[in-house]
């Protein structure tokens, strides 16, 4: 306690930027503009007021309402289904692509690598319009199919933009692989499949998890591309929230958004934990 007071009285050291006003101001600005809106959103999800402009007391009614809104729940179910399927497919495709780029040399490899990052750099709105055109003119996706097949168009578009993120994450992970590990396994008698299972896959795992969570969150909160590819029966959660906001911003919208934020944050946290543990272990393990 006393130590703390003494340190406060001394002038800030050369690297103690946190104790100088410009950085403190910067931090304050970040807090205000980044976190204040999020916190306001969450706080007002408990507001006992339909119009949700001033605070009128605490209630969980709108969470109950959100859970009873069958359209909202259906949209949420769609979103989770789409996110789940597109994650599984993009991780598989991404892992294979990463292996291909890591392992082999082939004509047009540079071109292929460049094309891989296209979905990341192309503006989402263009991707959305492109998908819309593709699924109306080139390959119309029948909307009358039973659930979840009717979500096919959205799933395909989600895979097409998230798999390149996954491939890049796994490719980066593979770059740190020590090729002598593979040779050691072969030297000890392992064949190709065993080498992959026993040595390469364990090294890839953090990349697979990180890539998967990335794909999941990307798909779960994607609005722009989904908006262009969804139909009346295939609404996803973000699209549904958007349509609700167009009528009025009730605490129900806040409640639904809060749930989404919590899920996303939790997944990111898990991803970071898994990666952090493994990075530390591998750094020490050489």
């Amino acid at each position, binding site marked *: 306690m006393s130590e703390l007071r003494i340190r406060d009285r001394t002038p800030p050291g050369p690297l103690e930027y946190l104790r100088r006003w410009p950085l403190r101001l910067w931090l304050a600005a970040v807090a205000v503009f980044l976190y204040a809106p999020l916190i306001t959103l969450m706080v007002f999800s408990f507001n006992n007021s339909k119009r949700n402009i001033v605070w009128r007391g605490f209630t969980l009614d709108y969470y109950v309402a959100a859970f009873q809104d069958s359209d909202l729940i259906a949209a949420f179910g769609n979103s989770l289904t789409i996110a789940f399927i597109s994650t599984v497919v993009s991780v598989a495709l991404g892992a294979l692509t990463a292996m291909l780029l890591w392992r082999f040399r082939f004509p047009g490899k540079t071109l292929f690598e460049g094309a891989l990052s296209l979905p990341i750099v192309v503006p989402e709105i263009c991707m959305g319009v492109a998908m819309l055109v593709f699924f109306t003119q080139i390959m119309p996706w029948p909307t009358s199919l039973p659930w979840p097949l009717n979500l096919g168009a959205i799933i395909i578009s989600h895979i097409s933009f998230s798999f390149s993120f996954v491939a890049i994450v796994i490719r980066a992970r593979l770059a740190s692989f*020590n090729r*002598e*590990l593979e*040779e*050691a*396994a*072969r*030297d*000890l*008698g*392992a*064949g190709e499949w*065993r080498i992959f299972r*026993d*040595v390469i896959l*364990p*090294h890839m795992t953090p990349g697979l998890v990180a890539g998967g969570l990335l794909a999941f969150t990307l798909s779960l909160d994607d609005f722009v591309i989904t908006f262009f590819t969804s139909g009346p029966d295939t609404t996803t959660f973000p699209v549904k929230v958007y349509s609700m906001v167009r009528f009025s911003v009730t605490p129900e919208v806040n409640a639904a958004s809060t749930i989404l934020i919590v899920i996303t944050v939790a997944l990111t946290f898990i991803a970071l934990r898994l990666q952090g543990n493994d990075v530390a*272990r*591998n750094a*020490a*393990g*050489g």
Partner: protein
Amino acid sequence: MTSKTIIRFENVTKRFGKMVAVDKVDLSIEEGEFFALLGPSGCGKTTLLRMLAGFETPTEGRILIDGQDVSRIPPNRRPVNMVFQSYAVFPHMTVADNVAYGLVVDGVAKAERDRRVEEALSLVKLDGFGERKPDQMSGGQRQRVALARALVKRPRVLLLDEPLSALDAKLREAMRSELAQLQEKVGITFLMVTHDQDEALAMASRCAVMNRGLLQQVATPSDLYEYPNSRFVADFIGQVNLFDGKLTVDEPDHAVVTTTDLPTPVFLDHGVTGAHGTDLWVALRPEKIELHKRIEGQAAPVMEDAPAGHNVVAGIIRHIVYLGSESTYDVELEGGRHVRALRSNLTRRDQEDLTWDEPVWVAWHACSPAVLLS
């Protein structure tokens, strides 16, 4: 020890595109040897080792293990195992799992596997470390894991790729004798690749010196040092003073070489297979040079095994490097040539004996110089 050839390289050549990494190498390694492949980086020694392990295939020639051609057999079916330069210990497995890996792949039963893993761990003095993860171990311990993992498979030959290069100086020294002891204990043939001549001389029973893909000389460490067959070997192993000259006298029991580098001719106590006027080089190791104080007006000393006026040159000490146990002297000879001499500091006063800019006689015995024809 009955010597039986275990590995034979027959006319082995390896080309990477236009680059010749290994050039027509013929080499036999006997059972139970600790053999070192020695050479500067890029000389092809690692490629030769990797061809034996199976990670590279020879462009030409054959590699035989126990008389069987293995050139086309994949690494996982060769009776050799390797300790990699980075040790390549599997980071996600425990030490015991690492060591057991080769046995699991081979389908060895659990009971036998556990017994052999324990045996291998105690061989490398890692008893009780089985449950540790590699990241909880030091570099030296991880190397022991890699050793145990290779030895547990009881290979015909153990390959070691620069085994000591990643260790710090003190540990490297300790590991040298430990590796040599381990080899004696298990009786497996060791084949080591190294660029460090001290390492090769200290551990190996026989060494092959390579340069630019070619085998320069295959010999025991002492023969390599005392009887190098080329300027490259003489210069690569240890330090050397080289003088180029011509053969002027060549009798069965002595020979004389005159050289432009030295004012006096070099007398040798043995004949040289060469003709009069043959260009050759005389190699003289620094520790085989004697330094005597030179006092103005006194006659030059005469070496008892050489005629007067041979093997003695006047000079002046220009530079001294004091290394504690020994000192090296840079001596400028009459005629301008510099030679390096080495003296052990046998008494506490030795290093005070000769000092900077002191006139000295540089002398050597007739048996000391090595004659090199290439």
